């Protein structure tokens, strides 16, 4: 147990020393929040535009803030974790760890905890800046939002671990991670209002694994309800990813 804690702590520090992860988890969601929040303000759409309503009628900043929490989760899970695991495998770090009796479960658990932890730091940072400096309203149900965050961060981190497990090199993992992050940002509700997405992109958004995470985060924030369907999807993504990662994981 102490070794798992130690490994988690060391890995957390290593993540925080990685500029790319820090940028995408901490800085970018914040920057996007400012840009889009500045552009759209926080006035709810009342259908003045010929009855066409965007953001489901919610204030754009209220809509985006929980979505960017999802983006911070995706930053570490898509850009941090996969490249990290693939690099460890490529450089022989995994071989070395294995030779010192680190188990598959131990290593993967540490990655999951670290990823969750970094996503939490990123989200706290985002909200700490968002509340005093934007017009965002507090979540209708903070408790449900918190539960949604824990579930979303854990399950999406498991998905990131799976990506790092199946991609052969750090370079491939980093490219794929960046691509997925940007794609998810645009189609999963953290980019343009979903109502204005062309049909093809909306269809991709339907199946993008970040979409249910963001919906699950937005629902308690905006309406105080628990998003049942999305949360089941998130849980399924998490369980399948964790299982697949465990069985597909290779030390070298």
């Amino acid at each position, binding site marked *: 147990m102490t070794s798992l804690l130690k490994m988690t702590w060391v890995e957390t520090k*290593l993540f925080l020393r990685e500029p790319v992860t820090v940028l995408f988890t901490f800085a970018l969601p914040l920057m996007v929040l400012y840009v889009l929040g500045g552009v759209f303000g926080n006035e709810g759409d009342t259908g003045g535009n010929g009855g066409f309503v965007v953001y489901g009628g919610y204030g754009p900043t209220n809509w985006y803030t929980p979505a960017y929490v999802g983006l911070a989760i995706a930053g570490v899970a898509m850009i941090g974790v996969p490249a990290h695991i693939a690099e460890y495998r490529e450089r022989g770090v995994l071989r070395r760890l294995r030779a010192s009796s680190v188990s598959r479960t131990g290593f993967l658990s540490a990655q999951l905890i670290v990823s969750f932890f970094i996503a939490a730091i990123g989200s706290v940072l985002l909200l700490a800046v968002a509340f005093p400096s934007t017009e965002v309203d507090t979540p209708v149900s903070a408790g449900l939002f918190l539960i949604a965050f824990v579930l979303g961060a854990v399950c999406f981190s498991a998905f990131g671990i799976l990506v790092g497990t199946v991609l052969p090199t750090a370079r491939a993992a980093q490219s794929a991670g960046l691509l997925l992050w940007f794609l998810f940002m645009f189609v999963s509700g953290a980019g343009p209002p979903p109502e204005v997405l062309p049909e093809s992109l909306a269809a991709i958004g339907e199946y993008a694994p970040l979409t249910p995470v963001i919906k699950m985060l937005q629902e308690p924030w905006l309406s105080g309800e628990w998003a049942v369907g999305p949360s089941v999807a998130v849980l399924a993504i998490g369980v399948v990813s964790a299982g697949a990662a465990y069985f597909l994981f290779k030390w070298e």
Partner: protein
Amino acid sequence: MGSVISVEHLRKTYGSFVAVDDISFEVEEGEIFGLLGPNGAGKTTSVEITQGLRVPDGGDIRVLGLDPRTQATQLRRLVGSQLQESALPGRLKVWEALDLFASLVPGGPEWREVMERWSLTEKASASFSSLSGGQRQRLLVALAVVNEPRVVFLDEMTTGLDPAARRATWQLIEAVRDGGATLVLVTHFMDEAEQLCDRLAIVDGGRVVAGGSPQSLIAEYGGDLQVNFSTDRPDVSFLEAIEWVDSVSRRGPHVVVVGRGPVLALVGAELVRNGIVPTDLRVQQATLEDVFLRLTGRGLGE
């Protein structure tokens, strides 16, 4: 002193590629045992199987009484390892590495002591990527012994190091042995094996082609000895009568005696009896390089 490692008829193939054909060796407690051979001979595969990191296709292996195939987890706690082509995260600091690896062993030693013992204290906050080749090896050796293992595997410790760092690494290896561990050293450097190993197995093409102490291998396969000295005395033909001498030749004052076995002592004694006391009497001995050449028909670099 029993044997701590026993490997019999080890075999490992990858598809149609035979990595290890048939390798057997025994390692005695407290010795430095070497696996010497060119790249691709099957040395690394063999030691990785011995540590339970790979699964063999055939053979009997016992390490400290454990079977690495079925008891790998238990075994890994008892052995230390420096793997070929393994590294640490570049941004990991020296003290963090020691702290982490020490924590992997329940009841292990204090990592600060280890850091002190291996003279890494002044580099404690340096990141792994900023260390020189020699410093990295020092850290990797320290990590390999952090669990106070009974057997330590060191795979190609000195590849890519400059001569000074190589010498320093040799001292580290001897220090590990002096600490009471049994060492298995994998190397393709002849001088390293000759300098460090008590016994070794020469591996080529997935097989052990010869085994023994460096001295016995040289005596057996190294071929003739050459004794050189110089003298003004024109006639040294009396040396030809010595039993172990094969030939005597001279060019000016320089005499070359070719022979075998105890030829040096016999030549020396005979010279003294005949009133010749050369100051430059020396023997040119074969090295492991010659042994390898003779056994495989090619040099190590080929």
